């Protein structure tokens, strides 16, 4: 599904990705972990074609994505920071994205789920951070695409919405999708992820099951396992 080989990217003098190779061939939930600035978002944005790699190749469903745009119809993306045009209302934004994609969307169901009804006619500039994140979630989940990329989906969500989010992700997994998630919340990873991809200084340090990572670092819980890896590599 997603195949990345020898990916390099630097911004100015800072090398963000160095020779990253990653293949995600099966369905399931993949957590992309790593300390701040390890290249998680750059990796995701390279897959989406928002960042253009210096070297290397990315294939989505067997197609090399360089210079292409059509493949993005198979990807739903939740950006890290929910930023929208301030003078659009929620309902206008949703219908705009629907119109641009031209695909069937189950937005009404999601609006109901996240209780966004009262906010539909409000301007996006006047919404709180958490509400914006809910709008963000509606936009990401309303289409039925085989690949789902979530960049820090839990930011700013209240506990009820967090439960809804987990259910949604599980439902998408059951529907046979490939889901990539980046997050810093390890409980979330332990509860949700099938596999972990651990990025360290622009390279993939580890890819495998949660248990394997625990075994590798000789720790019982994930948070400490990761902390151990990080302190060993300092």
């Amino acid at each position, binding site marked *: 599904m997603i195949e990345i080989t020898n990916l390099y990217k630097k*911004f100015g003098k800072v090398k963000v990705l160095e020779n990253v190779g990653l293949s995600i061939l099966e369905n399931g939930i993949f957590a992309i972990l790593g300390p701040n600035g390890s290249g998680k978002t750059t990796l995701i*944005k390279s897959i*989406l*074609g*928002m*960042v*253009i790699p210096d070297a290397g190749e990315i294939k989505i469903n067997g197609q090399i994505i360089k*210079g292409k*745009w*059509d*493949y*993005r*119809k198979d*990807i739903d*993306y939740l*950006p890290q920071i929910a*930023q*929208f*045009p*301030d*003078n*659009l209302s929620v309902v206008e934004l949703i219908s*705009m*994205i629907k*119109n*641009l*994609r031209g695909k069937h969307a189950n937005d009404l169901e999601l609006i109901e789920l996240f209780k966004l009804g009262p906010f539909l006619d409000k301007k996006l500039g006047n919404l709180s951070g958490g509400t914006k994140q809910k709008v963000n979630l509606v936009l990401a989940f309303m289409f039925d695409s085989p690949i789902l990329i979530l960049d820090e989906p839990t930011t700013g969500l209240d506990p009820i919405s967090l439960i809804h989010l987990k259910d949604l992700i599980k439902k998408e997994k059951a529907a046979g999708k490939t889901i990539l998630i980046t997050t810093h919340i390890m409980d979330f990873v332990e509860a949700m992820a099938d596999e972990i991809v651990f990025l360290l200084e622009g390279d993939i340090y580890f890819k495998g099951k949660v248990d394997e990572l625990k075994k590798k670092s000789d720790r019982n819980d994930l948070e400490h396992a990761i902390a151990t890896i990080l302190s060993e590599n300092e």
Partner: protein
Amino acid sequence: MIKVLQYSFYDLIRSRWSYVYLLFYLVLGFALLFLNNSVSKSIITLMNIIIVLTPMIGTIFGVMYFYSSREFTELLLAQPIKRTTIFIGQYLGVALSLTLSLVIGLGIPFMFYGIWQSSEMMNFALLMISGSFLTFIFVALAYNIGLKNDNKIKGFGYAILLWLFMAVIYDGLFLISLVVFDDYPLDKFTLLATMFNPIDLSRILILLKLDVSALLGYTGAVFQKFFGTNTGMFSSLLVLSVWTIIPIYFISRSASKKDF
């Protein structure tokens, strides 16, 4: 492309600034016609205003819209849309809405004054055409500046410098060089120097049509002598089109290389 253009366009025509701009031209048009009480005199005054103002509004609005629509752009980039489409669509949205403000804002007062029956109709049309060209050119240049500079303040600075250079400094340098190299034949140099500044070019284009030899100046006179009125107009329109197409090409080129 049409969808992106549509959203940018609606977004802009709902903003307060488009109305302020439109209102400004409305007031200007009525005031000039009322004060001059003659269409042809008003057109000459308008020319002097349009030639300085449309590039300024174009650059400032262009660069402002580019930076303020960053979120919108990032949202679009994750959708199955070609990059070039996103940026060219937005660019056309800005340029079209500004052009519309210009044409409607000045069109209404002149229509009330009976421009359709007047012999000045073609002159007025040419004024609108060159104003539109200048808007399209300077919005495109501003978009290029935006794409090359992630720092807003720098981008604004460059945009204002660009306008200042084209509208004021260029002419100054040009005049100085004419004085300094007085002893040499300067016809070819003048022609070439005019081609490199769309503002000068539009001024000459309009003056050639208005046939006011007193206002033509040295550059205009050289132009008229070299090309004659009709060929002169045709070639300046051609060069203005080149001035529009090249920055648009660079927008699509830098858009496809940029990281977000």
